[in-house]
């Protein structure tokens, strides 16, 4: 049991637990649940003298973890079911830190609000929402790993974000940033995204960077990134799941700290 820093101070009793972290969906079914290996998840809680539960959750994704698929939302297990004080589920109970870890370059991260779960289905059985919390995100993030070059004489260059945000979510045009990197042999006139997640030639989970006039000898080169506001193209796009705010991967870290009133 960890003790406090100051001799004589009252020491709360922290108790370790392994938080359940699983997928939920609005319609139920179709979910392949994540499989977490030993040591990926850590949680602890301390019940205050006032009966409030203080809790922490840490998820450090290991290479042996399986993230699952098909869920709308990831739920994070509380040590005890919460007293849902209102009809709404969105009152912040905690804060979350989402981080891609120090080995990532860049190290994307976000600070987020955490609330009790919406009453979604874990695969056919509702009613578990008081046992879980959910994380609200401000942006979905993706970026290219290097310069993209238009093919000679081409007016479009396909850009896939599927490996980072999946194939369902569709960013708006204003979410996408394209930055020219050279002076092509013919002026492109404009550079903008089109066919965003439209299927067809562009393909799902991608868009076409588009110019008006193609070059043959020195085509246009560009960099891209997406900082997308959640939107209605994907279910519950405002909440964390295995592809939000990015596709979670080995070494990424998700942590929560907060306090809530347990159900009695």
């Amino acid at each position: 049991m960890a003790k406090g820093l100051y001799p004589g101070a009252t020491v709360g009793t922290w108790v370790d637990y392994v938080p359940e972290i699983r997928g939920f969906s609005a319609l139920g079914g179709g979910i392949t649940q994540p499989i977490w290996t030993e040591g990926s998840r850590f949680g602890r809680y301390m019940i205050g003298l006032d009966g409030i539960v203080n809790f922490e959750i840490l998820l450090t994704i290991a290479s042996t973890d399986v993230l699952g698929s098909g869920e709308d939302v990831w739920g994070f297990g509380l040590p005890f079911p919460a007293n849902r004080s209102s009809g709404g589920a969105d009152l912040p109970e905690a804060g979350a830190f989402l981080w891609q870890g120090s080995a990532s370059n860049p190290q994307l991260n976000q600070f987020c609000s955490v609330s009790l779960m919406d009453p979604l289905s874990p695969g056919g059985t509702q009613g578990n929402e008081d046992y879980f919390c959910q994380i609200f995100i401000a942006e979905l993030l993706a970026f290219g790993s290097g310069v993209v070059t238009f093919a000679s004489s081409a007016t479009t260059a396909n850009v896939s974000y599927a490996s980072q945000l999946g194939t369902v979510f569709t960013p708006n045009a204003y979410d996408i940033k394209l930055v020219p990197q050279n002076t092509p042999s013919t002026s492109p006139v404009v550079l903008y995204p089109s066919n965003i997640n439209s299927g067809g030639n562009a393909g799902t989970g991608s868009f076409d960077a588009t110019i008006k006039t193609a070059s043959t000898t020195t085509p246009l080169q560009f960099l891209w990134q997406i900082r997308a506001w959640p939107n209605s193209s994907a279910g519950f796009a405002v909440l964390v799941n295995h592809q939000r705010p990015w596709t979670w991967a080995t070494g990424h870290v998700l942590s929560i700290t907060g306090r809530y009133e347990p159900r009695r």
Partner: protein
Amino acid sequence: MARGLIAGTVEPQWETYPLEVKLIGVGATQPAPAYSTVTNFARYCETAEGLIDVWIMVSFFTNGDQGSLTPTTTDCAYVFKLPRPANRVTGPGSPCPIPLSMHPGMAYWSFSNPWITEPIVPTLADPFTDLAGDEDSWFQCYVRRRLSFGTASLSGGNATVAAFTAGPVLVEDVDLNFTNATSLSITSGLPIITNVPGSSGFQVTCAAGTAGFAYRVLGKEPTGQFGALLNPFNPWDMTPGGLFGSFPNIFIRLTYEPRR
């Protein structure tokens, strides 16, 4: 009264209290959210340390609930009533920009598209004249940026976009992408974004041509005591059914030291 799953613990003595939201500003029409115990409520309990935990949930369902004020360059801020006066550690009548929560509150649009959230930081209210010396009984919230979005078209090479109902838009705060540029040509030139004098919008100009575009504004907060505070225009237009389509919410959980 212990009913619970956690035997032997003390049950927090939660009390509900009247939710009061006030709009600071000359000539303001006060907000009037539809108070209920489900969607608009305030409650508190005293912690073992003598601090006060407060939960506040505000939703503006109907246009007018959010209050209104003729926008000027300054005075406009929501403040929310605390259950008891706070101990202002910076001294009576002084601003006290210390967060009242270990995690941010949340400004949030329900069932909207885009479906967005913004963190908000609660602090004790500034000593606004409208509070008549009772600022220790109220808190305010800081906002990091002002948000807007939309689509528009260039016609004859230019388009004017009204992005906000309050405050100027800075050129560098605008993200813009064409969505249809087939009629642009080499003579169109690059699109240029400029402020519109005397307006809160911005202007997009090309040398010639027509084109559709989508834009997003991530606005930096303007100068002034009220510039970065939550209000009917900040971090977004709070009009229910307006720009974002559904209704706005303000969710806050905070802990503070009461005055003794």
